């Protein structure tokens, strides 16, 4: 099912009652979530991700704006009438009920003409349990299971009524690194198998990048950019998005543009055709460095970390913002610092320029 958000805004009265200012948790959201896609809602802590999700499922009512499921205006519809499945950050499994009873819970709430017989319920429970591969664990209590298993029970409970929309709030944040990898694949698989439109909230960019069809990046309640993961990574619209996506983080230098050339200090690092003169940030992806003894960018060599497939070169430069430059190069390549100095040239498609004041992308012709 397609979800359309129109000028969606949510303001909260400030928790600190002495302060009059309202908190704008979600500010003027306008976008469409296409049918059958897995959408990652990405942003740092406190940026309003959960609020956005709660607005879609109906646990919160928007201050302004509208929400449509396909053509149906659901803005004023109670959550139970929207037919969504919700998975909470802490799963919210009923601890006193077995897995079976937990998954059956939503089915038992069906009344009137939708009422199901015991047998049908049992069948649906089994079906959902099989989908998330926990059909062996049906008679356990939630506290007798690992985090990843509980997570799957929570998904099964959200799926058992076959909702048209599945919403997941930081579903993986309680899992250890290995389980997180495994479970996110699992979520992707379940989503592909069922084809349910899924919105999933995370503050982990890697997680969002790896499984989302579409990523929505937000900051302080404001939508920054929406698009395919690779698109956002390659063509970030502003410095925040550029810095938020990708590990290791993008390397940001202070620089300027003169005569359609981008400078870091005295070094001309790339062409900037069509860009006006002015101060800029030059942001370079770690994989955008080429070790080159004739390269324009001279840096002080600090260290080299070999990580099997590739090597991290740690270096510093007076125009660099932050701790250390981190460049990733294939491990076959030699790094020979000359008098403690290593020189780089840059891959132009891995370098992005941002206006120094508004921090927005400066487009160049190539």
């Amino acid at each position: 099912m397609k979800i359309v958000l129109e000028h969606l805004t949510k303001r909260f009265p400030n928790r600190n009652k002495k302060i009059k200012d309202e908190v704008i948790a979600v500010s003027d959201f306008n976008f469409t979530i296409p049918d059958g896609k897995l959408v990652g809602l990405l942003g740092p802590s406190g940026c309003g991700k959960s609020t956005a999700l709660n607005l879609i499922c109906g646990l919160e009512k928007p201050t302004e704006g509208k929400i449509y499921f396909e053509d149906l205006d659901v803005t004023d519809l109670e959550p139970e009438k929207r037919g969504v499945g919700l998975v909470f950050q802490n799963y919210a499994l009923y601890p006193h009920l077995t897995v079976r009873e937990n998954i059956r819970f939503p089915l038992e709430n069906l009344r009137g003409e939708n009422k199901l017989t015991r047998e049908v319920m049992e069948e649906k429970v089994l079906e959902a349990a099989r989908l998330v591969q926990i059909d062996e664990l049906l008679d356990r209590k939630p506290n007798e299971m690992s985090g990843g298993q509980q997570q799957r029970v929570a998904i099964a409970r959200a799926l058992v009524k076959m909702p048209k929309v599945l919403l997941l709030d930081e579903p993986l944040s309680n899992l250890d690194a290995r389980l997180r990898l495994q479970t996110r694949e699992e979520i992707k698989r379940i989503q592909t198998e069922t084809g349910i439109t899924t919105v999933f909230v995370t503050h982990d960019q890697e997680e969002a990048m790896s499984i989302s069809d579409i990523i929505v990046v937000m900051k302080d309640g404001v939508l920054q950019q929406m698009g395919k993961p690779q698109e956002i990574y390659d063509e970030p619209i502003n410095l925040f998005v550029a810095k938020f996506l990708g590990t290791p983080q993008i390397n940001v230098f202070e620089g300027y543009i003169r005569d359609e050339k981008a400078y870091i200090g005295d070094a001309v690092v790339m062409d900037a055709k069509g860009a006006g003169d002015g101060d800029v940030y030059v942001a370079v992806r770690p994989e955008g460095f080429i070790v080159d003894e004739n390269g324009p960018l001279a840096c002080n060599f600090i260290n080299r970390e070999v990580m099997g497939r590739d090597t991290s070169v740690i270096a510093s430069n007076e125009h660099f913002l932050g701790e250390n430059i981190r460049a990733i190069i294939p491990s076959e390549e030699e790094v020979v610092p000359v008098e403690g100095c290593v020189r780089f040239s840059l891959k132009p498609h891995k370098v992005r320029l941002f206006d120094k004041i508004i921090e927005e992308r400066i487009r160049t012709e190539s």
Partner: protein
Amino acid sequence: MKKNLTAWLCLLPALAFLLVFMVYPLVDVFVYSFEEGYNFASQSYFGVGLYNYDYVLHDPYFIQALKNTFIIVIITVPLSTGIALFISLELSNIKALRDFFQTVYFLPYVTNTLAVGLVFMILFKKTPYSDGLVNILIQLFGGKGVDFIDGPYWAKMFVMCFYTIWIVMPFKILILTSALASVNPMYYKAAKVDDTPPFRVFYKITLPMISPMVFYLVITGFIGAFKAYSDEVALFGTDLNAAGMNTIVGYVYDMLYGNSGGYPSYASAAALILFAIVFTITTINLMVSRKTVFYS
């Protein structure tokens, strides 16, 4: 080993107190209850046997006290817990004035039993000058007044239960409101998204989540009600046997110090019978709870 010794040394004062003031009297009561014709003054007795129990169990006053106690327990424990649960649920639903209501409901708890008794007297007692507020109300609606303090048994029992419930309720409300507040709201959100009807939310989520507290209140409620005495005195005065409103503890007291007192052996036997009853009921409670109470 050395650590152990220090621990025991530290515990010693507490253990000594327990021995002197708890264990020794308990053993003593046990011994008394089997000594026939024990005399306080001469500290002598005729023999050892079950005579004291036989006497107590055939004493009409004890039978009356036993009956009264059981009626009070059976009526007040479920009713007070149920009403307290209802009020707590309502309290946790309202947002405005919640603190105010919580204070109001807690007031009886910090009020002296006798003061509450006095208020009940004014409400229920018939005097030469006034029929009491409740009777005036009954008569206003065309009913026939009844003397709740000196009148028929059922009327007295009604006031007694009413009073007991009134006294124990604040504590239960306090415990239950905090138990309700400690239930994680995400469960209610999950239930809401799943379109769970309110009754089912209560029965399937709220009640299991607060069941340890409810169970605690039921157990302490049973024990407290079986030990009822001061509330009866507050309403009906010290001569409870004459009023027909005595309780087991009251009977024990009367046997020791009352007008007909001076029989520690009978008192001990009655006390041990009470102990046996409370012990049995508590054991049954614990057994039932193992099946129904959920501990997270």
